[in-house]
């Protein structure tokens, strides 16, 4: 077993500089979570609560001719039945998606419950609330739906064909800003151009052109979606939801149900994984309508089949890539076409696939064409570094092929082309300070890479990855207690220990132990607006809000002490939890002593902070993997894995390592096993954890981690988001390792045993 290591260039300096940051305290919500006391979405129990169940389309593509709910309503124990007709008419209303602008509301409403057309297998069409889940399920069987079944289209390239069946008759392509004349499954075509491709390819000594495909994969969080709603007769709606963003749920439900935000309170429960998939609403508006109709609280919990059939997988994709390099390995040009499946409604994350694709490298001439394409699959949702694994897989595989042809070391080609601060990215934005070079160097120099790999059918692969990260709005409210501790209320739901990584940043400012900060995730009435837990932004942005709160409390304490001591506040300082005079009269007291005094006097010390930081920096990672391929069965075994990543500043190194290890393993699943199997009728055939095969502990070695710290100048402590980028390199690293083990290059994911065997037999 290899130890997990932290390699921080500035470690010694950090150790001196910080008391709390960089340590590994036990998380504040830990005891609740190891004792089974933490309340997750499905754990909510209310007096008189009913259980909601959703009827789903048995067809991939069908017009809904009629729905008859009379028999279901008559079943003993059934208290309410609903269809899309119970939602207010979405008509011409729009939803505001912030920087994406105003979009029509109808697709969002229709995805929650189909009004006129089911566009994927498992699409919600009706729902029932009953006194027990079993009765609700029985009632679903009594709802009569008349369908007109239509031919489905399940593949992104087939959907782009002129004569493909149309998922939506009224969808017209936004073709580089112009609306097309004919309806199409292509929702949009966008393009980024930098430099001059023909010049770039003319300068190349070697050019490769290849196609790469990714199957549809799911986020695979273990906790199914769950929402409980209580709609009071006074019009106030309270919801308990497992979500990545309580405020996002509030906005979505407000828009779909057309009720004022002020009458809607969302209480986030603990969340059992999300990875991007718990941002959209599904059962939330359904639970609300059922509650209004039944006049009782209603809980809607999905089962695993529903999660697979109807919640956000990420895009299946087709990528065509052409790149040119010089004999020395310098990339001169790259041209790509990205086609991503959006699922049943427009809005894949192809744009982020385009932005990230070439970001690790400084390439003068690039053209990126991006297509957002609807197919008869569930509406896609974000999945960890959304869009980036699909596109970067292509670049990282092709670079390795160049290395093999030119006899270059994979680390050297990455160092030769590696992006630096100020380099203009393919979409025209210059890179901020990023750690591409430092991270690649750390990977090159690590013990794993320096140790030769021996044995038949074994190979070592290298790949890098980039993710943009996000800033967005976060809020906290902090208040000093009479015993010198600080309560910290935050809007960011905690998926992976962020209560602690946020609290550590406040504790550092005041110089108090992190145990003296008491964080809690609160409802939408109790803290300022906070965007989703996603985009690798919580420790960065919400941590920054907590830092500001710490600074505000610090200056209030200094003022109060100055007042007490009758000195100028400039003559008072606070460090390590102790307030002292700096004028030589040696007076001092602890925060605890001052807090007790202020509390007795009724003086409130605290702060409310909202931040929207812009300079979130980018995240970069380089991974090294050793595999062994069984040539008879095609099974690929991961022998050793090392992930190297720039964390900016690792606030809580254990949880940074955890993000890296978790991302790697999701990437391994994506690389080797995971995929949606649809039959010819467009029906999902593997909607269980048995048949949708995620990695188990038995499939894996320990995942070694090396944290590189190139501080982000855009954050007071240098933090960069760390959660997403580790899912980007594994797919290509493994493909490259397989190539070096058995001499076949695989560009289609997953690289399942049958794919490997097929490729091996084609080769021989």
């Amino acid at each position, binding site marked *: 077993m290899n130890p997990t290591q932290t390699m921080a260039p500035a470690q010694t300096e950090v150790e001196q500089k910080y008391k709390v940051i960089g340590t590994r305290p036990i998380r504040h919500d830990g005891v609740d*979570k190891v004792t089974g006391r933490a309340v*997750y979405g499905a754990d909510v129990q209310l007096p008189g609560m009913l259980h909601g169940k959703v009827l789903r389309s048995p067809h991939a593509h069908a017009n809904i001719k009629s729905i008859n709910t009379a028999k279901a309503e008559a079943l003993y124990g059934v208290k309410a039945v609903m269809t899309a007709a119970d939602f207010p008419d979405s008509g011409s209303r729009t939803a505001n998606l912030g920087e994406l602008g105003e979009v029509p509301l109808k697709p969002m409403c229709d995805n929650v419950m189909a009004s006129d057309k089911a566009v994927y297998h498992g699409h919600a069409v009706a729902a029932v609330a009953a006194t027990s889940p079993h009765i609700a399920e029985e009632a679903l069987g009594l709802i009569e739906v008349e369908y007109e079944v239509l031919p489905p289209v399940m593949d992104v390239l087939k959907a782009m064909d002129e004569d493909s069946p149309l998922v939506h008759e009224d969808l017209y392509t936004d073709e580089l800003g112009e609306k097309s004349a004919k309806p199409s499954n292509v929702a949009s075509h966008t393009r980024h151009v930098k430099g001059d491709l023909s010049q770039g390819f003319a300068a190349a000594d070697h050019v490769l052109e290849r196609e790469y495909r990714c199957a549809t994969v799911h986020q695979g969080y*273990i906790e199914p979606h769950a929402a409980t709603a209580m709609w009071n007769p006074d019009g106030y709606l309270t919801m308990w939801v497992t979500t990545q963003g309580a405020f996002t749920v509030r906005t979505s439900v407000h828009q779909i149900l057309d009720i004022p935000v002020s009458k809607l309170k969302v209480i986030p429960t*603990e969340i059992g994984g999300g990875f991007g998939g718990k941002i959209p609403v599904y059962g939330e508006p359904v639970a609300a309508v059922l509650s209004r109709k039944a006049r009782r609280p209603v809980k809607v919990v999905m089962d*695993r089949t529903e999660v697979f059939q109807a919640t956000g997988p990420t895009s299946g994709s087709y990528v065509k890539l052409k790149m040119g390099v010089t004999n020395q390995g310098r990339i001169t040009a790259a041209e790509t076409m990205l086609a991503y499946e959006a699922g049943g409604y427009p809005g894949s994350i192809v744009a982020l696939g385009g932005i990230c694709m070439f970001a690790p490298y400084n390439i003068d001439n690039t053209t990126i064409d991006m297509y957002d394409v609807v197919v008869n699959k569930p509406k896609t949702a974000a999945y960890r570094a959304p869009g980036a694994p699909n596109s970067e897989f292509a670049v990282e595989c092709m670079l390795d092929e160049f290395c093999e042809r030119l006899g270059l070391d994979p680390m050297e080609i990455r160092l030769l082309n590696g992006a630096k601060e100020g380099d203009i990215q393919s979409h025209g934005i210059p890179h901020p300070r990023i750690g591409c070079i430092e991270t690649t160097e750390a990977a090159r120099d690590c013990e794993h890479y320096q140790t030769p790999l021996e044995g038949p059918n074994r190979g070592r692969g290298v790949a890098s990855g980039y993710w943009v990260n996000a800033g967005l709005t976060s809020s906290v409210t902090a208040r000093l207690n009479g015993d010198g501790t600080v309560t910290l209320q935050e809007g960011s739901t905690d998926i992976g220990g962020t209560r602690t990584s946020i609290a550590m940043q406040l504790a550092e400012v005041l110089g108090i132990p992190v145990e003296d900060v008491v964080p809690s995730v609160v409802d939408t009435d109790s803290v300022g607006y906070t965007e989703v837990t996603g985009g690798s932004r919580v420790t960065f942005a919400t941590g920054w809000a907590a830092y500001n709160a710490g600074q505000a409390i610090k200056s209030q304490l200094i003022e109060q002490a100055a007042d007490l001591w009758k000195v100028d506040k400039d003559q008072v300082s606070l460090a390590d939890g102790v307030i002292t005079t700096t004028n030589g009269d040696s007076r001092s007291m602890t925060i605890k002593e001052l807090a007790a005094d202020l509390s007795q006097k009724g003086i409130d010390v605290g702060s409310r902070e909202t931040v929207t930081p812009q300079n979130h920096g980018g995240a970069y990672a380089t991974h090294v993997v050793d595999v062994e391929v069984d040539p008879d069965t095609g099974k690929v075994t991961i022998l050793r894995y090392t992930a190297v990543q720039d964390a900016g500043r690792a606030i809580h190194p254990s949880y940074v390592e955890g993000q890296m*290890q*978790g991302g790697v*393993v999701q990437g391994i699943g994506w690389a080797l096993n995971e995929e949606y199997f649809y039959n010819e009728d467009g029906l999902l055939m593997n909607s269980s954890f048995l048949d949708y095969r995620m990695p188990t502990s038995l499939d894996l070695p320990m995942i070694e981690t090396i944290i590189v710290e190139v501080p982000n100048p855009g954050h007071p402590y240098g933090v960069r988001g760390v959660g997403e980028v580790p899912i980007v390199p594994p797919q290509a690293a493994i493909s490259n390792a397989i190539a070096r083990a058995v001499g076949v290059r695989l560009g289609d994911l997953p690289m399942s045993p049958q794919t490997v065997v097929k490729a091996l037999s084609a080769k021989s």
Partner: protein
Amino acid sequence: MAAKVHVTATLNGEPVEFLCEPRQSLLEVLRDELKLTGSKEGCNNGNCGACSVILDGLLVDACIVLGAEIDGCTVETIEGLMGSDGLHPLQQTFLENAALQCGICTPGFIMAGKALLEKNPQASEGDIRHWCAGNLCRCTGYDKIVRAIMDAEPQLEVKK
């Protein structure tokens, strides 16, 4: 609806009796009837292990055992793990190793770890990986979970 069944069992060291429908799983009974929501539902068909409990000394998925089946049996759940002297060593090593992120799989893993170490107090990394293959975690990549279970071994030895 069939008549409810009367069941008597020992749950976390205490006698318990309840009525349940014949179709209700042990997981439903624990969560909905006995209000012990520490055992989680991830799949409801025995594939994810989030509802792992120990039934007469055997590790089982509570979602594929019927509530009526536990009549006369002894059941241990995550709620019964903490003793009068505080957290169970496994609970403590999970915290110290940061072996949980979202925490939804944690009760199941801790129960699986307990069942393993009772059988095999010196389980190797390989033993743990093999045994825990019935428990899915999507957040951690299992690394820190395996370490947490290994770290609990000497502590459990001392406790004996």
